[in-house]
């Protein structure tokens, strides 16, 4: 008995170097592209929060006499067809994108994860019913769904967020369900039952925490998807109504004036691309950093 205890102390010195958090950060920030993405996202958040401080002009201020001007010292990106400063409108547009992104992903993930958890845990009829509902939502392309709901409920920003949220539900529901089904097979869940845990305790303590990793990755990736979708919708005319500044709407506006000031279309498009790219890269980075195969001796 004593010999055995001695050995465990010996192991302490052989313990793997870093604690969980350090390890995670080391892998996550190990790739340059991930750092790039994180920086952009932080930039986006700061821009959105401090838009009034950062924008050089009032984004709604029209000045028809200086419409469609080329970039100048006063207007770094030029002006749009109503004389408004493009740069300021882009800065304010960050607010719309970010809000739509977070709210719609919030709605979709909460509803989707709940449905997935119920579906996976209880199985049987509930599972079939929920899955058919999910299939139905998935059969309608998200853009179309948003359009149709927009037609019905009006095209405002609120409805765009709700419809995007609904369109995102299936991704979470399916992923969560898949995770729950896998985790349910694990011996530690059975151990929970053997030691006498209640169903609720097992679901909360053993199943849920072990399902979350890929879902966190999905949330990050979906933020990019939502922003892209919002841009598409505002391009088509749904979402924020004029004179509100949204990147997609700006691209649409600029379509007519390509030969006058192409920046009106190009600039917001580049922003959309950078932001979505950033979320994708960060999502990928998270996926690699959370991958259990990379964790220690597992």
């Amino acid at each position: 008995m004593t010999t055995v205890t001695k050995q465990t102390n010996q192991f302490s010195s052989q313990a793997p170097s870093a604690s969980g958090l350090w390890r995670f950060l080391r892998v996550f920030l190990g790739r340059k592209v991930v750092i790039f993405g994180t920086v952009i996202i932080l930039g986006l958040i700061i821009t959105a929060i401090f838009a009034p401080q950062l924008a050089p002009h009032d984004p709604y201020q029209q000045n028809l006499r200086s419409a469609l001007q080329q970039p100048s010292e006063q207007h770094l990106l030029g002006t749009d067809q109503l004389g408004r400063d493009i740069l300021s409108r882009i800065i304010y547009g960050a607010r719309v994108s970010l809000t739509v992104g977070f709210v719609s992903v919030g709605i979709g993930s909460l509803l989707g994860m709940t449905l997935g958890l119920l579906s996976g845990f209880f199985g049987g009829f509930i599972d079939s019913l929920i899955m058919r509902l999910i299939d139905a939502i998935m059969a309608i392309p998200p853009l179309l769904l948003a359009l149709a709901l927009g037609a019905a409920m009006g095209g405002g920003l609120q409805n765009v967020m709700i419809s995007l949220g609904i369109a995102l539900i299936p991704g979470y529901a399916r992923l969560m369900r898949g995770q729950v089904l896998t985790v349910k097979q694990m011996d530690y869940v059975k151990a929970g039952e053997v030691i006498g845990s209640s169903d609720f305790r097992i679901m909360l303590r053993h199943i849920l925490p072990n399902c979350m990793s890929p879902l966190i990755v999905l949330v990050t990736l979906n933020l990019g998807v939502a922003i892209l979708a919002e841009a598409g919708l505002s391009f088509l005319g749904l979402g924020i109504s004029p004179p509100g500044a949204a990147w997609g709407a700006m691209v649409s506006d600029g379509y007519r004036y390509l030969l006058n000031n192409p920046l009106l279309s190009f600039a917001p498009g580049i922003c959309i691309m950078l932001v979505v790219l950033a979320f994708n890269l960060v999502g990928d980075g998270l996926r690699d950093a959370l991958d259990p195969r990379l964790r220690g001796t597992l």
Partner: protein
Amino acid sequence: MAGYIIRRLMQAVVVLIIVSFIAFSILYVLPGDAALIMLGLEATPEQINALRQELGLNQPMLVQYGQWFFKILQGDFGKSIVYRDSVADLIGKRLPVTFHLGLVALIISIIISIPAGILSAVRRGSILDSVITISANIGMAIPIFWLGILGIYFFSLKLGWLPVYGYTSPFDNFWLSTKQMIMPAICLAVVPMATLTRQTRSSMLEVIRQDYIRTARSKGLKERTVLIRHALKNAIIPIVTLLGLQIRNLVGGSVLVETIFTIPGMGRLMVSGVFDKDFPVVQGGIMVIALVVVLANLIVDLSYGYFDPRIRNE
């Protein structure tokens, strides 16, 4: 296998019924009077009433649903408020166009993304891999409509190589049709290309780690044989799943592409239907699109049996 097919068919039917309910109830989510909204504020009470009669809006909801559903089954999607044509006719004219666009985009994306994904996986960590991966990442981030506008700016306005808009059936004028198709199809193909490339890459990487690849190598097979005969055949299975999803994206993306390039397809029909509050068009459109998506997914699922022998005996 037969059981699997029949089960999938039944699931598809259930899904379509739920979709039809969703499509139908859009009308009922409306605050206010549907007929009034459709006709606009200048409509006279008689016109409104006439429309209400025509659409059967005075009856209880379930009855209306039943009537509508029954008509749908017969192919009668009602009449468009705006065009005064039968919705079925409208869809009939527009659907082939979108189909053409989607098919070309799908073929382009498969031809490029699968080899790209394989190369990227096999030469993991090389510059080629980085280039392909970064391109795929960018491809997933690019707004399609913006890409279209960029394309128009450079290739139409500045260089004059390609037409800005328009659509011609390939049966009428093949060369013109192709020139008009290039930009829209490529725009539409970007997202599926990017997604499929990433999926092919990760699928191949996953498969290459497997024990049976080591066995294949231990038999002394050429690396090329190992990759194509052993690895790819297994990697293709999850890729096929993704194809089903891409079909849905193609339909959705066509909404934007058709708008920019002024192509008279289903996408534009839906957009104008939404903005004109032309509900029969919107409802009919959703049903048909959902039908196409569900069918496409069904075909994909059924083709599993060909790719994965383990399913065949289920």
